[in-house]
């Protein structure tokens, strides 16, 4: 009995050490701490109020909300296309304002509605954009482009085509391939499937789920489509007028009685 006491004394420390060890792994990939964003100018409108949110590694966080709710603003703060006016935003445990902005952006894939592809680049050059500016050797770029085309389900033949010669769905796949090119741990997607017809949309959603299962990227996905949010997200952050209203898992979202959540579900019908 007496011999066991000293061991017990150590127990809290052991727990603490274990906690610290696990923490280094489970620290969120992206962390908003009271972040706000105001448009420049003395009377600039505030687009984002006091956002506090943690985005875990490997999760797909959906930013759901109407146009003007601050979803895209939130996204652009992450790759520092916008700088926070207040609070602090950490990516990989470092404030975005302390990052070398070019380095930061190259570890974050960025997919926007179909127009983001460079119209004067072939599919191949569009996908190889980041590897090229990172000066990868040519053979590695070619390999990577092939690999990515296959990954997003595109034929090798379209590599030499221009974006205007592709269908909307193909363009969007190229956009995803381009964002994944340098294997960034984080992926930002701003209504990537917004401009597509419903069938292609559903197809791409399935493919995205499949892809995410394999790649386990940290994904922040902006949409105003509730179905998309429920089918793709591990968590849904609901935004309204520049404020975060709730963060829920899809299951919680479906049973939630929070008024805005309810009005979303009502607006989309009840057949989930």
């Amino acid at each position: 009995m007496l011999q066991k006491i000293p061991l017990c004394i150590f127990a809290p420390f052991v727990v603490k050490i274990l906690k610290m060890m696990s923490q280094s792994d489970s620290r969120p990939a992206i962390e908003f701490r009271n972040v706000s964003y105001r448009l420049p100018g003395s009377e600039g409108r505030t687009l984002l109020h006091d956002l506090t949110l943690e985005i875990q590694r490997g999760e797909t966080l959906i930013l759901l909300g109407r146009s003007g709710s601050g979803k895209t603003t939130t996204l652009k703060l992450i790759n520092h296309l916008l700088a926070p006016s207040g609070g602090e935003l950490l990516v990989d445990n470092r404030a975005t304002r302390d990052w070398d902005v070019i380095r930061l952006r190259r570890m974050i894939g960025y997919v926007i509605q179909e127009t983001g592809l460079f119209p004067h680049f072939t599919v191949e050059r569009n996908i190889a954009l980041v590897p090229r500016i990172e000066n990868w050797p040519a053979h590695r770029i070619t390999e990577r482009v092939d690999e990515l085309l296959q990954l997003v389900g595109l034929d090798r033949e379209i590599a030499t085509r221009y974006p205007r010669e592709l269908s909307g769905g193909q363009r969007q796949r190229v956009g995803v391939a381009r964002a994944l090119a340098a294997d960034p741990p984080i992926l930002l997607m701003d209504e990537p499937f917004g401009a597509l017809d419903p069938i292609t949309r559903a197809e791409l959603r399935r493919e995205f789920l499949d892809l995410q299962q394999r790649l386990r990227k940290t994904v922040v996905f902006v949409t105003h489509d509730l179905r998309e949010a429920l089918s793709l997200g591990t968590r849904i952050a609901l935004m309204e007028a520049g404020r975060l209203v709730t963060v829920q898992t899809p299951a919680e979202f479906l049973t939630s009685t929070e008024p805005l959540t309810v009005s979303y579900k009502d607006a989309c019908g009840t057949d989930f």
Partner: protein
Amino acid sequence: MNLYQFLLQNHTEVLELTLEHLWLVGISTLLAVLIGIPLGILITRWPVLNKPVLGGANIIQTIPSLALFGFLLPAPWIGERADRIAILALTLYALLPLIRNTYVGIKGVDRSVIEAGRGMGLTDRQLLFQVELPLALGVIIAGVRVATVISVGLATIAAAIGAGGLGEYIFRGLAMVNNQVILAGAIPAAVMALLADISLGWLEKRLSPH
């Protein structure tokens, strides 16, 4: 004596004046490209400079050409030779279309394409040379085209200060009250303008990304 005979008889002189004319237009357009395009890029980067630069180029455009040639006569070094004056004046006139088209061309590039590029981590320089300039190239060439065509016409006036070119015939014909001689200067100049317009128009089409 008809025009055809006149041109045939004086073909060495016609050729000489045409080459002189080409030289005036070519050098001045080249200089204007070298100055105007960087200025156009500059004002997309520093919007504060936008008004003074475009305004300045606009004011130059409003000065009557004959007056501008005259103003430059007393200028040091430049004023020593008529062709220097002519080249400087033509360069100044060609600036506005070049600056404006470079600016408009870059500003006209789809915002989302730029944002995507920036978001993927392109530096400002990479964005300019890999995205903005290639996509604005058609509009910029259109500026070169306008500037060249204007220059071909304006360069005829350079003959008034003795800078040579096809304007020689036009002024000589005016003094002699001889339409044949006027046309001997005007027609080759018009052909030159047309050829420049067609070839640069073709280039513009080739280099437009869409």
